[in-house]
């Protein structure tokens, strides 16, 4: 048996020497071209970072390829970003071009800095999760193929950060992203009464439902539960505690699109993303309807927002009614909040645009 509770490797072992030397001494940075940062230290040292896109789902062989490049240019070190991008750092400016060249060879694009669409924070989807109402990696691939130009350039008004989550558990920061795609169910759980008996604790299952839709089965001989379908809002919390109540359904499942969230405290405080499209069907392998909406929003934003204005800041300035007008996305009853703090979203003023 191995050791336990050793924790992760000490990060200090993972830092290249030129980082160790300038640790905490950085003075400023520049983005010398899309995907390439230059950080300058108080010591006068410079470090160049080349940021490459990654599909996140990596085979060990691809990781080995990446290691080869890091060995070649980066003293055998590299890092990943909080958005799955791979950063190759070197203190030699001369290495930059070769790095970019070699990354191209293994199919990794360079970009994702500054006012770009960076990599998409996403989740497991059909690759691994039992909860998934949609796939994640496939949607990400389909969107990034279209956003490629925005990844490799910095011509947007500001950061556009996209996230995909395959269910409303929202593993990731979907709820605070400029653009968010989230898998949703639209059918109540299908109950397998035998499995309930075997796998589920009935009181826990009943309690798990936030709307009180779950009750004991009316037939006392059946040790199971029933769902009041009119009360169900498909949150899948019951499914998490009782696997005998799956919600997945080819027709019922699909994705919703949310927009206008942000995380940084720059200018405006962090904001939640808000519903722009309540539902689009799952249409693998390329989810064309979803990609279209994302493209549309990014394009309208790109040509209307002011410089350094995030999507949500832009929408806040012009008003949501104008956003729906400009994008041509229909406004529906689903857009109107009816959850706990709904009233706080109602427009308590005569100020609005036609």
């Amino acid at each position, binding site marked *: 048996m191995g050791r336990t509770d050793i924790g992760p490797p000490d990060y200090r072992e993972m830092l290249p020497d030129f980082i160790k030397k300038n640790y905490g001494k950085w003075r400023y940075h*520049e983005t010398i071209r899309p995907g390439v940062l230059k950080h300058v230290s108080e010591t006068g040292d410079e470090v160049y970072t080349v940021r490459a896109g990654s599909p996140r789902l990596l085979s060990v062989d691809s990781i080995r390829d990446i290691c080869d490049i890091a060995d070649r240019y980066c003293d055998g070190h590299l890092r*990943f970003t909080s958005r799955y991008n791979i950063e190759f750092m070197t203190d030699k400016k001369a290495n930059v071009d070769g790095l970019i060249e070699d990354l191209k060879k293994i199919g990794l694009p360079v970009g994702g800095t500054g006012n770009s669409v960076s990599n998409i924070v996403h989740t497991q989807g059909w690759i*691994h999760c039992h909860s998934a109402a949609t796939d994640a990696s*496939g949607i990400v691939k389909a969107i990034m193929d279209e956003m490629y130009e925005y990844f490799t350039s910095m011509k947007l008004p500001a950061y556009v950060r996209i996230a995909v989550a395959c269910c409303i558990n929202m593993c990731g920061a979907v709820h605070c992203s400029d653009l968010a795609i989230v898998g949703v169910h639209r059918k109540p759980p299908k109950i397998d009464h035998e499995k309930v008996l075997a796998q589920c604790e009935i009181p826990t299952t009943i309690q798990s439902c936030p709307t009180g839709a779950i009750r004991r089965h009316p037939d006392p001989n059946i040790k199971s539960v029933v769902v009041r379908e009119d009360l169900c809002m498909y949150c899948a919390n019951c499914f998490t505690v009782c696997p005998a109540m799956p919600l997945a359904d080819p027709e019922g499942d699909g994705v919703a699109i949310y927009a206008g969230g942000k995380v940084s405290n720059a200018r405006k405080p962090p904001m939640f993303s808000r519903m722009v499209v309540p539902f689009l069907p799952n249409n693998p392998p390329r989810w064309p309807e979803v990609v279209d909406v994302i493209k549309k929003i990014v394009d309208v934003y790109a040509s209307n927002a002011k410089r350094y204005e995030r999507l949500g800041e832009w929408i806040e300035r012009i008003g949501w009614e104008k956003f729906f007008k400009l994008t041509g996305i229909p406004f529906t009853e689903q857009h109107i909040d009816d959850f706990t703090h709904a009233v706080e979203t109602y427009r308590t003023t005569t100020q609005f645009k036609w």
Partner: protein
Amino acid sequence: MSEETPLLDELEKGPWPSYVKEIKRAAKKKKAAKDLLGIQELSYKDKVTHWKHGGIVGVTGYGSGVIGRYCDQPEKFPDAAAFHTMRINHPAGWFYNTKSLRELCDIWEQYGSGMTNFHGSTGDIILLGTTTENLQPCFDALTEKGFDLGGSGSALRTIAGCVGPARCEWANFDTLNLIYDLTLEFQDEIHRPRWPYKFKIKASGCPNDCVAAIARADFTIIGTWRDNLRIDQVAVRNYVDHGFDIKTLVVGKCPTEALEWDEGSKELRLKADDCVRCMHCINKMPKAIRPGVDSGATILVGGKAPIIKGAYLSWVLVPFVKVEPPYEEVKDLLRKIWDWWDENGRTRERLAELIERIGLKNFLKDLGIPPVPQMVYKPRANPYVYF
């Protein structure tokens, strides 16, 4: 299984790197990866997931770090019938040397599917897909090379922080050191779930919050400073002289009108009292403006995703703390919060939901933290006060 994957093949096209190519690459060596490909193709056809959760699996002595997963078509895909993931605690800042990375790869080629996520969205290295039998030997091999599991279940989750002082000029404290230190201190809390629900800690070195800590962590540490930001007027003039529209792009975007550009003297003036340290001016003029030097962090609590009561952003609990080893102030606060949550929380009730249920006022009282206006955007509007 059928060898054909016409739907997935579509995703090999296009300029963005293809995850399908990755699975195919692994599938050349590993049967489990081949079955993964088949299952994914089937999901694309059926438009539903083919995974189900099953019993609890794991490694000896731990309650977390492994997500048990089974395919619902084991006959068709015997090599991915059990396809558990292992969450490996990443090194702080996600820095690696290639030696370590190659060791990881070798281990996972031996015991797993050869597929990974670099990284999971909490920050772990996700080793994607292995059998129940392989879990323990894989774990043993990993610890041999200095890697350990991260959190899962009702435990402290793997702690993440931004690149911070390692490569960023704006870090107000040492994010890497803090999260490494906390991770070591709280190994037991990470590996042995015993709380009402999960608990997450994330640290960003400044208010840009490059790890989205405010949105994703129950306990959010964000760097800030107590004195004034530093302006280098010569460097400011240099920006302006190069055509930078300082009035529109910086002064006009300061959220509190704390900046003034004096066209005459070509000086950028700060009304220091009004600066809320949003970072915008610093972000856009990194050569000219820098954070102050009396550095520390703001601690916020409550961030989380929508289950069950809706999503929360963390809110201010402690406007300012110094963040210096041995980090006792932070650790004490964490322990106090956990005790309180453990005592009062219901199953599957995150910290924010508990505080909302019991009242922020009572939380503060129980923790002995005095109320300050920085905790709220605005005081109550209603008259319903429990005196």
